[in-house]
């Protein structure tokens, strides 16, 4: 009661000591405890008897504390006589450790000798707890910051990733860096094929990388379907919810798996977020993710989803651009070629390998189908034939479907409503299926169909024009009359896209009057060929009534008024009186004929020139020129393709032609035109060449010079034969002369020149009423006479077939041979 009456600040000093809110210890300078209060005993669980006189303060410390006591506490106390707030863990009687803060004061005797140490001990359990929490909080903050840094980097990478592959690459490393995951992998959804496929993984040795159907029971497919984050905390949980994970978790030692759908994020309210893929990552131990981490994981899923969405749009845009570029280039590239086969070839060459690994175009035109293919391997022939038939019959495309054994798309090539053929192709593996690709293929087939149909029409027209031209040019020319011989040559431009309008004709107006004509109709193609035919007929019809070349050209002028396409055509027209060798000629805008008389230089016939047919501005006063030509004269009519060259002035062309013509004055008529064309225009020429060469009369004496070329023997023989026929030499004698002459020339080629093509051989033949004489001369070096059995047979033939043979080997070799006429 009395105690109750005492005011609260009036305390009993003993009680205060014993039950103060801190522990008190008094020790001797060596640390031996001499006095201790109840608070200390309660905290540590010791009894007073256990401590006083038996223990030193340092005996109550942990081993770390004892070292600290030695190194800090004791020296400090000795130096300063007091220490403050030193942290020690006391070992309690039951072994617990009690965190404390200790203050001590050293009391000294008057002599200054240490007498006792007074120590207060504060319980620091709460404070330590607080400090630990503080530390943990800092760690969490640091983790979070690191995560944020990782995520920021990922988000930056994602923003810069233009393709799905790069998005996946940026994503797949994030879980390791951000959450310390052991490995992670990314799966994407292919809407078109309705499957989910793995694209990237940091540890390809784990997991199952097969494509899976979206409806699959596998965990990845389920999560993609639900669109929610799933954390599989343990193998047990996996067994319960996603049995397919158990095996791979066991095998790779994973205990926690996180399955994160990658979503487009909230779009419009109706559609909701769309799942584009799944990020799966796993941990070795069982790992609980905090709410904060889960929030971050979800965020990551959204970021990745958006990046994927963006990449898909980019991808789509890029493909669309590529496709339209491809189509435009295809059209342009097909336009470069006019003919059907090259165009067909180009279609498959465009398609393979750019969009398909195998392609075939099959066109049902003409009697045998046109088939071009490229790439490989060829698909199963039987299945392909079936599909081709189906498409050709229905006119509808059939696309390769999933699990399609044939794996080829077949599209009809149509034009103007007709199925022209088919385009079959097997798409490159990365381009299969998509709806956009189908539209693209249809467009491609449409363009190819149209281009091929145009080429087919072109081909058809070209064929008709060709046939027409051929029938006109290769028609019967007069022959068998010894008073003249005609040689013609036509060669189309090398890159002959269309037939030209060059033409020639030769015909007998009466038994003794020959007409030869060469002309050039403006334009090309079927119309030019038709016009040429009409003009040719007109010339033949007019020639019978006209009294000469001038009148005939005037007639053609009138004709052109009715046949507009013949206007501005050029014509060189010559009439020959076979009885006396008089020629009459007229040129309407055409190049002048080239005349070579037996003696002298070649000469262009420059008279009787006027404007092209139907010309409105030119000189249409048609005139003609007459002159008598000696037997053996040669007249060449030609079109501009022979002498006109973009690279040289036309004068040069005239000069060159005259020179080459003169050089060949003694060449056999046969093959002369072709040889001239070869020399003047070569094989690569851009214009048609049309030539007509006329030889008049029969030479009394035939002189020919040929190169030492085996091919020339037949040409020479043809001339010689014609000459012998013209002179009515009997067949037995004729055959003998031809044989002997051929053998002599062959000897010169084989033995005189040893096939040196620059060697020249002169052949001169004369005929009288009772004999034929032939002289063959070469300037080669005769090689060892008749040791060669084969040549021996040749010489034997010469001797046997001729009556007299003379060899002169003084300068080269001259063989002079004579055969009597009449006798067999």
């Amino acid at each position, binding site marked *: 009661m009395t105690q109750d009456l005492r005011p609260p600040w009036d305390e009993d000093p003993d009680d205060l000591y014993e039950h103060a809110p801190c522990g008190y210890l008094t020790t001797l300078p060596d640390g031996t405890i001499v006095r201790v209060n109840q608070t200390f005993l309660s905290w540590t669980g010791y009894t007073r008897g256990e401590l006083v006189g038996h223990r030193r303060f340092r005996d109550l410390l942990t081993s770390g504390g004892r070292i600290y006591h030695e190194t800090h506490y004791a020296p400090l106390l000795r130096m300063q006589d007091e220490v403050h707030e030193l942290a020690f863990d006391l070992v309690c009687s039951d072994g617990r450790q009690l965190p404390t803060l200790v203050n001590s004061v050293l009391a000294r005797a008057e002599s200054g000798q240490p007498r006792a140490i007074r120590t207060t001990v504060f319980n620091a359990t709460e404070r330590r707890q607080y400090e630990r929490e503080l530390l943990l909080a800092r760690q969490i903050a640091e983790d979070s910051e690191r995560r944020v840094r990782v995520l920021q980097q990922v988000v930056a990478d994602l923003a810069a990733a233009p393709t799905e592959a790069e998005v996946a690459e940026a994503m797949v490393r994030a879980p390791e860096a951000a959450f310390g995951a052991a490995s992670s992998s990314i799966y994407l959804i292919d809407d078109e094929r309705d499957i989910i496929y793995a694209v990237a993984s940091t540890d390809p040795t784990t997991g199952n990388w097969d494509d899976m159907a979206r409806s699959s029971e596998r965990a990845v497919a389920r999560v993609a379907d639900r669109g929610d984050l799933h954390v599989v905390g343990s193998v047990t949980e996996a067994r319960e919810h996603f049995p397919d994970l158990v095996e791979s978790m066991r095998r790779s030692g994973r205990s926690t798996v996180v399955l994160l759908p990658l979503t487009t994020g909230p779009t419009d309210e109706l559609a909701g977020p769309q799942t584009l893929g799944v990020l799966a990552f796993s941990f070795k131990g069982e790992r609980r993710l905090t709410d904060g981490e889960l929030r971050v994981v979800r965020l990551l899923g959204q970021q990745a989803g958006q990046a994927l969405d963006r990449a898909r749009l980019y991808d789509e845009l890029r493909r669309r651009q590529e496709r339209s570029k491809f189509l435009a280039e295809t059209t342009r590239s097909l336009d470069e070629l006019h003919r059907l086969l090259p165009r067909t070839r180009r279609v498959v060459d465009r398609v393979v390998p750019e969009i398909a690994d195998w392609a075939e175009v099959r066109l049902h035109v003409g009697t045998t189908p046109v088939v071009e293919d490229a790439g490989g391997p060829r698909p199963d022939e039987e299945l392909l034939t079936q599909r081709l038939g189906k498409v050709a019959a229905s006119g509808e495309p059939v696309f390769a479907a999933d699990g399609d054994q044939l794996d080829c798309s077949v599209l009809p090539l149509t034009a103007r409503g007709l199925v022209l053929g088919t385009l079959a192709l097997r798409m490159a593996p990365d381009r299969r299926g998509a709806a956009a690709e189908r539209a693209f293929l249809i467009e491609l087939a449409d363009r190819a169909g149209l281009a091929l149909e145009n080429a087919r029409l072109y081909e058809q027209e070209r064929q008709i024009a060709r046939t027409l031209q051929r029938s006109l040019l290769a028609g019967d020319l007069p022959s068998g009359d010894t008073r003249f011989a005609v040689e013609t040559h036509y060669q189309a431009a090398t890159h*002959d896209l269309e037939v030209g309008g060059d033409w020639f004709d030769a015909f007998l107006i009466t038994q003794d009057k020959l007409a030869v004509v060469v002309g050039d109709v403006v334009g090309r193609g079927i119309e030019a060929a038709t016009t040429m035919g009409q003009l040719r007929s007109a010339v033949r019809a007019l020639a019978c009534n006209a009294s000469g070349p001038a009148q005939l050209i005037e007639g053609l002028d009138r004709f052109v008024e009715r046949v507009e396409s013949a206007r501005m055509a050029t014509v060189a027209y010559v009439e020959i009186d076979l009885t006396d060798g008089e020629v009459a000629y007229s040129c309407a805008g055409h190049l002048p004929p080239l005349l070579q008389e037996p003696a002298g230089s070649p000469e262009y016939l420059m008279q009787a020139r006027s404007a092209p047919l139907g010309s409105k501005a030119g000189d249409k006063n048609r005139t003609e020129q007459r002159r008598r030509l000696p037997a053996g004269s040669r007249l060449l009519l030609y079109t501009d393709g022979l002498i006109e060259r973009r690279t040289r002035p036309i004068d040069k062309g005239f000069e060159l032609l005259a020179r080459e013509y003169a050089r060949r004055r003694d060449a056999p008529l046969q093959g002369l035109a072709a040889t001239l064309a070869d020399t003047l225009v070569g094989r690569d020429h851009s214009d048609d060449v049309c030539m007509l060469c006329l030889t008049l009369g029969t030479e009394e004496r035939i002189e020919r010079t040929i190169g030492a070329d085996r091919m020339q023997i037949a040409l020479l023989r043809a001339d010689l034969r014609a000459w012998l026929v013209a002179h009515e030499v009997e067949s037995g004698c004729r055959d003998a002369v031809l*044989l002997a002459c*051929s053998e002599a020339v062959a000897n010169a080629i084989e033995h005189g020149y040893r096939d040196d093509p620059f060697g020249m051989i002169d052949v001169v033949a004369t005929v009288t009423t009772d004999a034929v004489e032939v002289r063959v001369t070469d300037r080669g070096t005769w090689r060892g006479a008749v040791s060669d059995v084969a040549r021996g*047979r040749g010489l034997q033939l010469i001797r046997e077939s001729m009556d007299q043979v003379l060899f002169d080997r003084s300068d080269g070799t001259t063989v002079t041979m004579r055969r009597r006429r009449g006798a067999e």
Partner: protein
Amino acid sequence: MEFTRGGRPVPMGQLDRWVTFSTFGDAELVSLTGEIDLANAPEIGRAIVERIETAGKVLIDLTTVSFLDSAGVRLLDALVGDLNDHGKPTRLVVGRTGAARMTLQLCAFREDVLATDLDRAAAEISS
């Protein structure tokens, strides 16, 4: 396209202008035509040898040959000799007159392998 009248040299590969192959009864029939000379005889020879390698009997028809020179005779001589060596019966069919007959006669070609018509030639070698 190119076409010309007359004797433009004909490139190799157009040998069928001069030589064609068929069978006559159980014999291989080689038909020659046109002018056979130094320029084309070697090519024609090669084509014939290639063709008759497996033949048992051979008939060579020269009735439409309009010219035959010593190179042609050399070719025929080699062919006949080779066929004889292998015991393969053979005949050359040549008209009674004409350029080919003349050349062969002038060379004194073996008369026993010459015949004037195809049926007779075939009959001769079938026995």
